[in-house]
């Protein structure tokens, strides 16, 4: 029994991280047709914010400094996102292929800037809680519970905001039909900028959460960006719920298969499963596009 609970908890840890990284990617891709290859670097920025804040101390023990970083990292991520959107992305809105090249370049520049500032050595980070706790009949690391809880709350809040706030409604309108939304008085440019910054903030938050479980190096984000694109395509471009569904599918399948099969074979099978699913549901599990969007040739 407790074994099954641990399996589920292991899957939930992976799903939380994947969903946080994928949501921003899904919105940005859905709204602006921008393939943001620099999205993974926001994960790295989050992780480095944590190591920087913990090293600087500000008279706080590293465990307390963690909470400071948890608040600070999304703000820094959002700020860097705003700068990149303003400096590069907004100039390339009608040239989707060029954004791939541009964001790839930004990704390399950010990696090198981080390396120049902090060096090539992996950074030291400390988890705010350590040890194992017994919950739901399982003996499980306390920090992983924290990831699941924080990730779950933030994902739920994002879903709620997307579903019920005026901002969310406007955002969905822009994703479905940008021209129509603009003609109804929605400031699409402003919304895209906020969405880009928001997605970057979520990725930076994921960076803080996963840093204590990972090696904090300049290329940290590159390991998550590939999987996140995979989640977005599977879940549905432009859909927050789709990103969550895609993460559940990819994270869940990978975790479960890892128990039964060789890990290399498990990764290959998840990929095969995704290919079959995309063939059956080409617009993803929860499509973010409407029929109108498809009429515009973007389906």
């Amino acid at each position: 029994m407790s074994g099954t609970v641990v399996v589920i908890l292991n899957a939930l840890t992976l799903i939380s991280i994947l969903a946080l990284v994928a949501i921003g990617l899904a919105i940005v891709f859905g709204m602006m047709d921008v393939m943001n290859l620099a999205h993974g670097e926001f994960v790295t920025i989050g992780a480095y914010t944590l190591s920087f804040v913990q090293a600087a101390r500000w008279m706080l023990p590293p465990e307390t400094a963690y909470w400071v970083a948890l608040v600070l990292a999304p703000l820094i991520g959002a700020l860097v996102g705003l700068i990149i959107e303003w400096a590069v992305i907004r100039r390339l809105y009608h040239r989707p292929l060029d954004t791939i090249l541009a964001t790839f370049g930004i990704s390399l520049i950010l990696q090198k800037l981080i390396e120049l500032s902090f060096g090539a050595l992996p950074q030291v980070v400390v988890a705010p809680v350590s040890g194992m706790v017994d919950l739901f009949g399982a003996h499980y690391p306390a920090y992983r519970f924290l990831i699941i809880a924080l990730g779950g709350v933030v994902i739920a809040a994002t879903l709620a905001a997307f579903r019920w706030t005026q901002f969310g409604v406007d955002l969905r309108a822009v994703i479905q039909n940008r021209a129509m939304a603009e003609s109804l008085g929605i400031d699409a440019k402003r919304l895209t900028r906020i969405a880009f910054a928001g997605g970057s903030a979520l990725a930076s938050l994921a960076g803080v959460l996963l840093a204590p479980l990972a090696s904090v190096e300049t290329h940290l984000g590159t390991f998550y960006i590939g999987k996140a694109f995979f989640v977005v395509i599977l879940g549905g471009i432009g859909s927050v719920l789709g990103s969550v569904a895609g993460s559940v599918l990819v994270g869940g399948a990978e975790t479960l298969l890892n128990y039964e099969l060789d890990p290399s074979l498990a990764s290959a099978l998840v990929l095969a499963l995704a290919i079959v699913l995309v063939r059956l549901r080409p617009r993803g599990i929860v499509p973010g596009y409407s029929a109108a969007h498809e009429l515009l040739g973007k389906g």
Partner: protein
Amino acid sequence: MGLSTITRRRFGGLAVGLAGAAAFPRALRAAEAIRIGFLGPLSGALAFVGQTNQNCLDLAVSEINEAGGIAGRMLEVIAEDSQMSTKTTLDKARKLFQSDGVVAVTGMVLPSEREAALSIAAQVKRYVLFPNFDEGRCHPNLICTGLSINQSTVPMVRWLTSNVGKKIYVIASDLATNRQIMLGSLKAELDAQGGTLAGAQFFPFGARDFGPALQQVAAANPDIVWHAIGDDPITFVKQYASFGMKPQLVTPLVHESIAAATEDASVGNIGVESSYMSVDTEANRAFIDAYSRRFADFTPRRVRGKVVMLPHGEKTYVAAKLLSEAIRLGGGTDYDALRSGFGKVTLAAPRGTVKVDLAASHLVCDTLVGKVMPDRGIDVIARLGAIAPVCTGAKG
């Protein structure tokens, strides 16, 4: 044309010409220098390892030159970035051997870089000095300055079965050399010592979540977990510690840099290596001191007051010192002279006395068991002696 016709521009040209003439003897000296190639990852995920190797090569070369060079000839380093890419390594190896005329290359980290450099070295009859532990690769143009499988895994398993426990679980990167040679050697020795293999899992490069594997390990309840997650040992060690795993963690992939980057997660881990920062020899103290002085600004990270050093760095340093001795003893830089020179060398390296076993392409040196202490330093807790290397990997 009188003096008055010397314009400013002409005067400038004249000055450049004079300066060029003055510099000429210096260029002549450089032409006489013996060149050694550095070819390692100076960018990408392994940049820190590559940069450490380059530092250690520079340190060895300046020590050799300050002592008068090799029979009066200076040693000169030509450095290239392998970018962790096989194609780039091939191109750069071709450039180093064919255009720059280096007598040997060193500095590689990955087996793929070693193979790429070796394929060119074999064509031009030059040497590759590979500064890493490996699966027991043998080649007439190769000398590895790290331990071979039969010098590391095999004696370590023997030591573990009589000192720690007899039930081992293996978690390693999914490489053919790990699946076949490493696991095969480990299992054979384990069988011979009456131990059991509790399980083995191989992870593809890029795997970053070991939760499911660790749960299975805990269920199998081994005495020892042997890890060889080569692309990201830090992530593995952190997650291992966070799950409160009981089995003793043993790995050929622990050194002071990893210990320092994982907070308390590495403390108590046991490693097998040919060198650690704490090895108690005069040559090692001099080496670590000289490195700490010269590269104080390279990284802020310190272990026991010294700039953090990787075992790869010592291996690169040893490679350069061996090469210089081999040129001196062999009386030349061509392949046959070097080969005869390598056969005669006995070097007081930082790790202790080393000799070259030409038939097995590896060194004869002590195998050390290290343990990570709470101050992130590694103490040598056992010496398994000098074991003759054996070709367990590909030959030729």
